[in-house]
């Protein structure tokens, strides 16, 4: 069973995001980059299935050269091979264009399952999974917290409003991972050393015969408004405090 995991490299969740001078992208100078946490669930699940069923785990990433580190991290966790579609302009590109590029890179690998995170923690678009399934002409199983692989088919679970939806699809299929699917392993130290020797193939968009022209473009990025300071309600007695609070809620906050 061959499994492909698509990986996006995103800013570490503790990074303080600043908007770049162009007003359309984020300033990347002081950012620590990590593998998208949802993609990590995908890597872990792929490694567990591989342990039970055999086969190969191949990780695929698209973006600038720095993405190599996230791919090497996945190799250190235990994946066998990596493919990087290297292009400086791919970070922040239209998710549809990214899905098309990933599809072109994934298709020749003939996977039985393609894993990826249900969304990336940076832009939260959640579009690449479904679009990738469409471009690969495979069933799309989104927001999955449990995977059981059968003979030529897969059964997955998706949490929906306190209920669980059980979905079954034929293989090959695209599965996007939700938190709760598993607890990803650490890249062990021996794993980090072994990863150095594992194959990592670098491709360009030209190799795939594609460009990154998407349908949507980011027009502007603005930070969320700064939080205003809280207001202290004053008063001598409980009655007076309650009256002043009610007055503030009605006249200033205009919520009652």
């Amino acid at each position, binding site marked *: 069973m061959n499994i492909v995991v698509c990986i996006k490299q995103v800013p570490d969740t503790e990074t303080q995001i600043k908007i770049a001078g162009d007003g359309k992208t984020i300033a990347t100078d002081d950012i620590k980059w*990590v593998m998208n946490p949802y993609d990590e669930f995908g890597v872990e699940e792929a490694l567990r299935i591989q342990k039970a069923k055999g086969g190969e785990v191949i990780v695929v990433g698209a973006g600038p050269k720095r993405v190599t580190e996230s791919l090497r991290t996945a190799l*250190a966790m235990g994946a066998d091979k990596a493919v990087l579609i290297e292009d400086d302009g791919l970070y922040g590109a239209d998710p549809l264009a990214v899905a098309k590029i990933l599809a072109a890179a994934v298709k020749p690998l003939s996977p039985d399952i393609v894993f990826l995170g249900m969304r990336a923690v940076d832009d939260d678009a959640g579009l690449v999974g479904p679009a990738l399934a469409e471009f690969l002409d495979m069933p799309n199983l989104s927001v999955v917290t449990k995977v059981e692989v059968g003979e030529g088919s897969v059964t997955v679970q998706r949490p929906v409003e306190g209920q669980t939806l059980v979905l079954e699809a034929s293989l090959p299929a695209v599965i996007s991972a939700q938190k709760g699917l598993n607890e990803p392993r650490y*890249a062990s130290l*021996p794993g*980090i050393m072994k990863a150095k020797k594992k194959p990592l193939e670098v491709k360009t968009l030209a190799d795939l015969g594609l460009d990154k022209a998407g349908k949507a473009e980011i027009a502007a990025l603005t930070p969320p408004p700064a939080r205003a300071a809280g207001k202290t309600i004053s008063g001598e007695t409980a009655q007076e405090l309650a009256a002043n609070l009610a007055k503030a809620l009605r006249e200033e906050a205009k919520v009652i």
Partner: protein
Amino acid sequence: MDFELSMEQDILRKTVRDFAEKEIAPKARELDEKEQFSLQTMAAMGDLGLFGMVVSEEYGGQGMDYISYIIAVEEIARVDGSHAATVAAGNSLGIGPLYYYGSEEQKHKYLPDLCAGKALWGFGLTEPGAGSDAGGSATTAVLDGNEWVINGSKIFITNASTPISRGVTVMCKTGSRDEKRPELSCILVENGTKGFEAREMHGKMMWRGSNTSELYFEDCRVPKDNMLGLRGKGFHQMLETLDAGRLSIGAMGVGGAQGAYELALRYAKERQQFGRPISTFQVNAFKLADMAMEIEAARLLLYQACWQKDQHKSFSKSAAMGKLYASEVMGRVVNEAVQLHGGYGLMKEYNVERFYRDQKLLTIGEGTSEIQRLVIARLIGAI
């Protein structure tokens, strides 16, 4: 010059940081409070590969460079000194001498389990009456037929009395060349050997989650082949071991200082007094700026020493400087970090209190600050 870490070193730092924050940080305060060594976190650290980091794969090690090892210790120390101590002593003092001076047989016998973190090994140097004056060891080993007979005691020995401790390397007087210069040799003693007892020490101020022991030898007999390396080379082996060990104490200083500084910065930005975060008062902002600067300086000094070691250059002076500077920087940082926390910094509920105590070992263990200054003074020709 190139200040960039390699990709592997970068992945290693992220991995160990992630591990330390998720697996060690939540347990550190309780283990400190109960003065308890945890077999569970020990096993997790072993599984991650934190033991035998610079040992070649042939003996079950990870085959990494020294700077990678130092980064790992730094990242563990960033959340907890006790666990960093277990790792640093395990690698530098337990595994180090066996790997560098052991026979093939000794290496194959002990290293695989030690490198897997399934077993621990101690290094018995300090004695109740011989601390900085390590050459004045009173523990003796006398050859009787095919056995060494050891008598004496050692104190403050890390990792020697845990349930998985397998043995110790003991520095013993095996003869004398003249009045003033005893012949010192290192001998391996397995736990369970008759006449050897490793007794856990309690009531520590710091590193309370790590294991510290007193060792007692009473007509303890071990095979003649348990000699580590050559007879009479003990003092030399000890000096080399401590040179390398100093780098890991330096890493504990840099990592511990980093952890305390981050706690202080976060607290000072959240704590409001006089209607604004206390970090915005210049007197506090400058403290934080000084911390950041000193930590960076200590890290650069330490990494330079590791680089020299990795390049097989002489690193004794840099190691002494790195250890001395990093441990004293951590002293200044924890002092101001507690100060910034005000009354809360005095409470065990706040982690900075533990960092404040754990720091104190660093200016004492593996050569006091005074001994480091002596080493440096000799190496620059002042004495």
